[in-house]
């Protein structure tokens, strides 16, 4: 009997070497020509239901092209989750649905947002950016003027210091990757280097800090070391090519690549240069995580190396044994991602993941590993390293240093901040994916 392409495919797959336990395959499998075999979730040839016909949308003219595009109505379930949809007097959080996205940047309408008193409706022509304090000449910039400055573009993630905080819970909270890790997003930001503007104002030799403030109702303010302001800080005007979204700081925001989200002042209207930090509400109180024993960290500037698996993840059920791609997001506030390892047996054996190119500093890096799931229980983990040599900690390591709760908090509470340890997903025999500690 002649062998068909599908017979050959089956044989080739059987011969594939797993590189780690529970069916993790070599990361270059796809590149070596295996991709054609892997496009479906099953290799069982379908017997019926394959008759091809023309559907209605192919048989008549379609809808008129809109002037501002929106996604297909079939994608309307891909939305942020809102913590305070009625805008009651407290903070609002909108979380990114990482399990329904892929690639390395977040669409603008799905970028996470935290607003402490709603998004201000700023008229860009009336907005002003003031630079004053320890400078030779205080200056004011309009948006129109800033648009004439030499600009730079860069990819950068922005992450809330409280992202992933549910993993401080003593028991794993059953929730989606959106609920657990939805307060981080990544975009291409374009704007004017802050150093250009500070330089123009003339930095006084005594200045060591800037205090940045927004035009939002709470006039949110944070102190930032001058070294960071001069190094890679940006007054961002564009987000993924269009003007910054209202929730992300329209018409301009401070971007501090790799640093705690709250410091990236949105709606930025004022930068004062000082010798000492302001010890503002958010640095003195809110973003000061308490350590076991009662002391608290202050100035937790850097979002440390982290990764988590988005596919599969809770809410994305497996469709029976067979081939899947495990993929997820890795990033570090200290530079580029150097390596991501993936385990399917709860951390006993590891396979190196392929990193989507280009790998950019302080931006999302998408990692991928082919996986042959045999239908038995598996525990998936990812672990990242950055180019500075930092290793993503295990949860046990992080908890040993930082503690955990004694009671299970609500999923949207923030028992502490700056959780960057490993996340574990258990894949049950039923195909359901659960959050576990392993």
């Amino acid at each position, binding site marked *: 009997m002649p062998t068909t392409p599908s017979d050959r495919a089956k044989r080739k797959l059987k011969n594939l070497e797993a590189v780690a336990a529970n069916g993790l395959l070599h990361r270059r499998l796809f590149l070596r020509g295996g991709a054609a075999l892997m496009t479906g979730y099953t290799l069982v040839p379908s017997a019926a239901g394959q008759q091809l016909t023309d559907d209605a949308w192919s048989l008549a003219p379609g809808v008129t092209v809109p002037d501002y595009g929106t996604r297909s109505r079939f994608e309307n379930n891909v939305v942020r989750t809102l913590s305070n949809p009625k805008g009651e*007097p407290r903070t609002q959080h909108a979380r990114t649905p990482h399990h329904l996205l892929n690639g390395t940047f977040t669409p603008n309408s799905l970028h996470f947002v935290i607003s402490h008193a709603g998004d201000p409706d700023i008229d860009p022509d009336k907005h002003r950016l003031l630079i004053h304090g320890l400078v030779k000449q205080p200056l004011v910039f309009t948006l129109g003027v800033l648009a004439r400055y030499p600009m730079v573009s860069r990819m950068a993630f922005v992450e809330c210091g409280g992202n992933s905080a549910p993993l401080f819970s003593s028991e794993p909270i059953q929730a989606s990757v959106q609920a657990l890790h939805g307060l981080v997003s990544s975009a291409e930001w374009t704007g004017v280097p802050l150093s250009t503007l500070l330089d123009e104002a003339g930095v006084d030799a005594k200045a060591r800090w800037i205090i940045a403030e927004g035009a939002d109702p709470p006039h949110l303010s944070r102190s930032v070391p001058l070294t*960071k302001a*001069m190094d890679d800080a940006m007054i961002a005007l564009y987000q993924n090519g269009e003007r910054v979204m209202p929730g992300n700081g329209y018409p301009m925001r401070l971007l501090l690549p790799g640093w705690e989200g709250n410091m990236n002042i949105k709606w930025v209207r004022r930068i004062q240069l000082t010798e000492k930090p302001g010890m503002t509400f958010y640095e003195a109180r809110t973003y000061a995580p308490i350590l076991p024993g*009662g002391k608290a*960290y202050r100035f937790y500037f*850097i979002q440390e190396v982290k990764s988590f698996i988005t596919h599969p993840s809770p809410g994305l059920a497996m469709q029976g044994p067979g081939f899947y791609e495990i993929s997820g997001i890795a990033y570090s506030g200290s530079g580029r991602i150097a390596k991501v390892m993936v385990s399917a047996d709860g951390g006993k054996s590891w396979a190196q993941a392929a990193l989507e190119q280009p790998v950019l500093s302080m931006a999302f890096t998408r990692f991928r590993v082919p996986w042959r799931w045999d239908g038995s229980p598996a525990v998936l983990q990812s672990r990242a390293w950055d180019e500075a040599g930092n290793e993503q900690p295990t949860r046990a390591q992080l908890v040993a*240093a930082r503690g955990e709760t004694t009671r299970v908090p609500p999923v949207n509470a923030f028992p502490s901040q700056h959780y960057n340890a490993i996340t574990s997903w258990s894949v049950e025999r039923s195909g359901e994916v659960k959050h576990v500690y392993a």
Partner: protein
Amino acid sequence: MYTRSLCGFAVTFALALSAMVASAQSPNLGKPISPAEIAPWDINILPDGTGLPPGSGTPAEGARVYSAKCSVCHGQDGKGGTSTRLVGGEPIKNMESEKTIASFWPYATTLFDYIRRAMPWRQPRSLTNEEVYALTAYILSLNKLIGESETINALTLPKVRMPNRDGFIVRFPDRTP
């Protein structure tokens, strides 16, 4: 704990830049502005009292403003309502400890700065400096951090010693001036 810094060069870089005036690379389009024009926005207060305006207030004056403008959310006598309480609190032990003004805030100046920039929640920047001093005095006195008849002004506020002032560890000393 887990992060090594890549940015040793940043300090030298910043010092080199700060030594220069108006960059040749800048179009120099920023418009000079005078201190008087800046004044309405010039609201940052530092722990040493830098930025505190003239004026003063007492707990008794603050109590009156508080019942009119704050108690609807923060409850009678600061005991808490739909929003956080502003009085009381246990010593900080672990991440489940409640961060209150008395138990956690390291500097009293933050109270003035935050009330003036952000409260009352629906009408931020509507309070006079006198009212902010009075509210600050009232909240500090509710927490027994000052006496019931003490006056709070630019000289006395920075001297208020908060119980948890030394309860902090700088996370990234090499990045913190």
